[in-house]
C-alpha cells in the first residue's frame, strides 16, 4: 500500500517552514478524508457511543435524560421476555442453518452439472431477490393463509389444515422457509462461481483412479469451496442473529411471542414501549456477543481473499 502511494511533495525550495510545509504537502490528503471522518464520527461513532451512554440513562425527549446507573441492565436481566427472545433468536439461527444453509450449496453443485438451461436456472433462482421484500411479504401472507394455496394442497392430500402463521409450532419455521426461498439465490451464485472454477482435470484424474461420483463431490468439490462455505456460514450467523424484519413484517413477533427475536425486542422496546434506555442496554449486550462473531468473519474473509 505504502509503496503504491505517491507523495505529492512540491519542490523543497517551495516549502517555507517545516510545520506549514507539512500541512501544505499533505493538504489534499487530509482534505479528501475529512468529509468521511466527519460523517463517520457523526453517524457511526456518535450513535455507538451514545448507545453505551444511554444504556445508563432513562431517556426522555421532553424532560431530559436522567442517570439511572445499572437500572436498565437490571430490567433486562429480570425480564423473562428477554430470555424468551434469546431462545427464539437461537432457534431462528438454528432453523436457518438446518432449513436454509445447505440449499444453495446443493443447487450450486446441481446447476453446475446442467448441460442445458444453466443460465435460466440461475436467473430463476435469483429472481425473488430482485422483487422488493415487502411485496414478497404480502405474497407469502396469502400463500400461508388458512385458505391459501398451500393449505388447499394439504387438504387435497388429506393431511389437513396447518396454520402456518398462527400456530406457534409452525410460525418460525414458515418464516425461515419463506426467507430461504427469497434469499438462497445470491449465496448460490457465489457457490456456483466457485464450483465452476474447479479445474476439470481434477475430476478426470479422480475418475481414472476409480473415484465414484459421490466421492468426487465429497473429496474434490466440497473441499474446493470450503472457504466460501465458511465465510457464508459466518455471514449468515451474523445476519440471522440480528434478524427481525420478516418477523416484524409478517407476524409482529406473535403469535404469543413465538417469533419475537432479540433484535425485534430491541425495536419494540424503543418504538412501542418508548423505553430507549433499556433498548440501548439490550443493544450493548447484543454487541458484546456479536462483536466476537464479526471478528471471526473478518479473519475468514481475509483468508478467503488470499486463497482465491
Amino acid at each position, binding site marked *: 500500500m505504502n509503496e503504491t*502511494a*505517491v507523495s*505529492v511533495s512540491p519542490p523543497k525550495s517551495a516549502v517555507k517552514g517545516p510545520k506549514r510545509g507539512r500541512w501544505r504537502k*499533505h493538504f*489534499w*490528503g*487530509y482534505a*479528501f*478524508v475529512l*468529509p*468521511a471522518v466527519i*460523517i*463517520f464520527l*457523526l*453517524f*457511526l461513532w456518535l*450513535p*455507538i457511543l451514545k*448507545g453505551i451512554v*444511554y444504556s445508563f440513562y432513562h431517556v426522555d*425527549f421532553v424532560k431530559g435524560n436522567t442517570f439511572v446507573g445499572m437500572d436498565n441492565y437490571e430490567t433486562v436481566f429480570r425480564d423473562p421476555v428477554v430470555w424468551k427472545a434469546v431462545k427464539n433468536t437461537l432457534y431462528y439461527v438454528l432453523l436457518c442453518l438446518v432449513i436454509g444453509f445447505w440449499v444453495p450449496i446443493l*443447487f450450486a453443485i*446441481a446447476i453446475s*452439472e446442467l448441460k442445458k438451461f444453466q443460465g435460466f436456472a440461475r*436467473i*430463476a433462482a435469483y*429472481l*425473488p431477490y*430482485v*422483487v*422488493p*421484500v*415487502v*411485496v414478497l*411479504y*404480502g405474497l*407469502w401472507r*396469502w*400463500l400461508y393463509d388458512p385458505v391459501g*394455496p398451500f393449505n388447499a394442497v394439504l387438504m387435497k392430500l388429506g393431511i389437513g389444515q396447518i396454520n402456518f402463521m398462527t400456530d406457534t409450532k409452525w410460525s418460525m419455521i414458515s418464516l425461515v422457509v419463506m426467507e430461504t426461498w427469497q434469499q438462497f439465490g*445470491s*449465496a448460490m*451464485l*457465489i457457490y456456483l*462461481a466457485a464450483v465452476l472454477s474447479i479445474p*476439470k482435470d481434477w475430476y*478426470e484424474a479422480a475418475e481414472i483412479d476409480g473415484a465414484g*461420483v459421490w466421492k468426487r*463431490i465429497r473429496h474434490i*468439490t466440497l473441499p474446493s469451496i470450503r472457504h466460501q462455505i465458511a465465510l*457464508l456460514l459466518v*455471514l449468515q450467523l451474523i445476519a440471522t442473529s*440480528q434478524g427481525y*424484519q420478516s418477523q416484524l413484517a409478517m407476524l409482529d413477533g406473535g403469535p404469543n411471542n413465538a417469533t419475537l427475536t432479540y433484535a425485534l425486542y*430491541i425495536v419494540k422496546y*424503543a418504538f412501542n414501549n418508548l423505553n*430507549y434506555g433499556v433498548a440501548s442496554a439490550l*443493544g450493548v449486550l447484543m454487541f458484546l456477543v456479536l462483536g466476537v462473531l*464479526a471478528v471471526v468473519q*473478518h479473519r475468514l474473509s481475509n483468508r478467503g481473499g488470499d486463497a482465491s
Partner: protein
Amino acid sequence: MKQAERGILSAYDLKKPANKIAYAAMSLVIAAMVVSMLYPIAVAFFNGVKANVEVNTFPPRFLPKEWHWENYVTGWKYIDLTLYLRNTIYIFLGNMVATVLVLGLASFSLSRLNWPYRKAAYYFFLVTLFIPPTTYIIPNFINLKDLGLMNTFWAFWLPAGANAFFLLLLKSFFDGLNQELFESARIDGASELRCFFQLAFPLSVPIFATLAIFVFSNAWNEWFWPSMVLGGEHYPLSTAIKRFVIDARRLDTNIRFAILTMVMIPPIFVFLIFQRYIVRGLHLGGVKG
C-alpha cells in the same frame, strides 16, 4: 471426446443406470425449484386480474376465470405510486452522490495520497465493520432526532457516506489502478481534485456501478427504517407498500395483488436486461462480505 465439456460427471458416468437416474432426479429437483420460484410471482399476477370473489374462493384457482384489467386502474388510483417511486429515487440518487463524494474521495486519499497517520485513519473507518448495525439502531434513531434530520432525506443521504464496506471495496479498487497515470498527470500540473474526477473516477466506473446496484437495492428494499425516520409523504416505495397496501385492513385482495404486481414487474425486467452486470457485481460484494 471433448474434454472441456465434462463437469463432476463424465460422459462415461452417465452410461451407468444408477447415475442416469440420479441425474434425472437432480434435473427434476432443479425444475421444481425453478417452478417454485416462478409460481408465487405468477400467482401474484393472476390474482391481480381476478375478481375479488374469485381470489377468496377455496380452493384457489391458478388461472383467472375472467380477466379484470380494471383492477390496475383501481390500484393505481388507490396509491400514488409515482410519488413514492420518486422518493425512492431521490434517496437512491442522494445516497449515490454521498458514496461517490465522501467515500470516493476518502478511499482515493487512503489509497493514492501519502500522508502521516494514514493507517490509523484507515482503521478508524474499518473498525466500524465489526459493529453490527442492529446493536445501535436505537441510539442511531435518537441521534438523527438530535441532529434535527427527522423527516428529511438528509437522514439517509448523510449516513450513506458512513459505509466502511464500500470504502473498503473502493480502496482496494483504487489500489489496483495504474500508478504512472497519476504521476504523469501530476507532472502535467493536474491538481489532486482533477486526478480524482478526471482520472480515478472514470477509471472506476465498474466499481461505482457495482456500488450503485447495492445502494439501489438498499433504497429499494428498506422499509422499516424509513417508516421510523420519515413521515408519510416522504415514504419510499417499499415503506408505502408495507404501510398502505400490505397492512391495509379494507383493501380488496385482488386490488392488493394488482398493486403488488405493478411494483414487482418493472424490477424483474430491469434485472433481466442488466442481469450480467448485476450478478457480477453481487458476486464481487458477496465474496468480500
